[in-house]
């Protein structure tokens, strides 16, 4: 009965593996990242496949930013200031991020924001 009362603590699950049923959505695809390639070319095959999903996620970030600042100034600030900060990041990360922005067509500042999400959201 406790599983119907928050925090919905269940009896310990058993026989869930191999993954199946309503808690399992899908398996995960494999990609190779060739570290011998120049950093800006390493992510091209991943981004080629995931461009639309990446765009959808970034759009959700834009929508969230607009909910807080309806004028759109927050995203403008991201697009203007974060590319400047990107140039201070160490390589190969800097060039990989630039390559991802170039391959996806998503503004550099927004891809940079995604890559520093952790530091932004630890408060």
């Amino acid at each position: 009965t406790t599983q119907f009362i928050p925090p919905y603590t269940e009896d310990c699950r058993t026989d869930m593996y191999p993954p199946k049923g309503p808690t399992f959505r899908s398996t995960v695809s494999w990609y190779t990242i060739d570290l011998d390639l120049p950093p800006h070319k390493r992510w091209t095959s991943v981004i080629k496949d995931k461009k639309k999903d990446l765009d959808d996620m970034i759009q959700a970030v834009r929508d969230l930013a607009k909910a807080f600042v309806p004028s759109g100034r927050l995203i403008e600030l991201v697009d203007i200031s974060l590319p400047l900060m990107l140039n201070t990041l160490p390589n190969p990360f800097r060039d990989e991020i630039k390559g991802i922005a170039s391959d996806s067509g998503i503004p550099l500042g927004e891809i940079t924001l995604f890559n520093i999400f952790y530091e932004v959201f630890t408060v």
Partner: protein
Amino acid sequence: CTSVVAEDSKGNLLHGRNLDFGLFMGWDLKNKSWIMSEKLKPLVVNLDFRRNNKTVFKSTNFAGYVGMLTGIRPHLFSLTMNERFSLDGGYIGILEWILGQRDGMWMSFLTRSVLENATSYENARSLLAQTKLLAPAYFILGGNQSGQGCIITRSRELSLDLLELNVKLGRWYVLETNYDHWEDPFFLDDRRTPAMTCMNMTTQNNISIKTLYDVLSTKPVLNKLTTYTTLMQVSNGNLESYIRDCPNPCMPW
């Protein structure tokens, strides 16, 4: 997030994690889910990082994110990180970085650098404990030999605590959610107690990739923020991951 490193009765090290992300980043009333968590799920990829056509490390990651949150260096160590919330958080580190104080490292860049360059479990532990960071974090590290598993609790500057496996003391697993292990978790977000209850019920004799997945599938360890589950075994270099859903009723975090 919930991360576990466990040692089975034969001395094999197993490492599992649920990655939870997207709290307060938009709630979808219709689907009763977090917007950001749902948008991240299609971006989950497994990556095989190769040099000279040989695997250096493997990772579960988000497409477009160059840092690492989950990874394995086959036959050497496995590594996950969990978010550590603090008022002295990453935004202060970012501000310092902008103002020109750049002696700290971005968290996910450090984990990637460790996965790419560390030559042993001890080397990885030392780098994760000693490198100055821009944001606090928990690093959960597993090795390839009995006793090699630990939780490193980090502030931006210091390693605050190191909790290691100690089978002789009965500590055959270490488990981290998003709270310092020496303090009680926030009462509205206690995933530690159910996870530890299930680990204790499983017992060391029965722990395996299969039963670790069972533990990570039990609510509220599995919750609306859970994006993926990854299971790793350093001895055979295996990494497998699964995109997750948490059907109602399910905790939002």
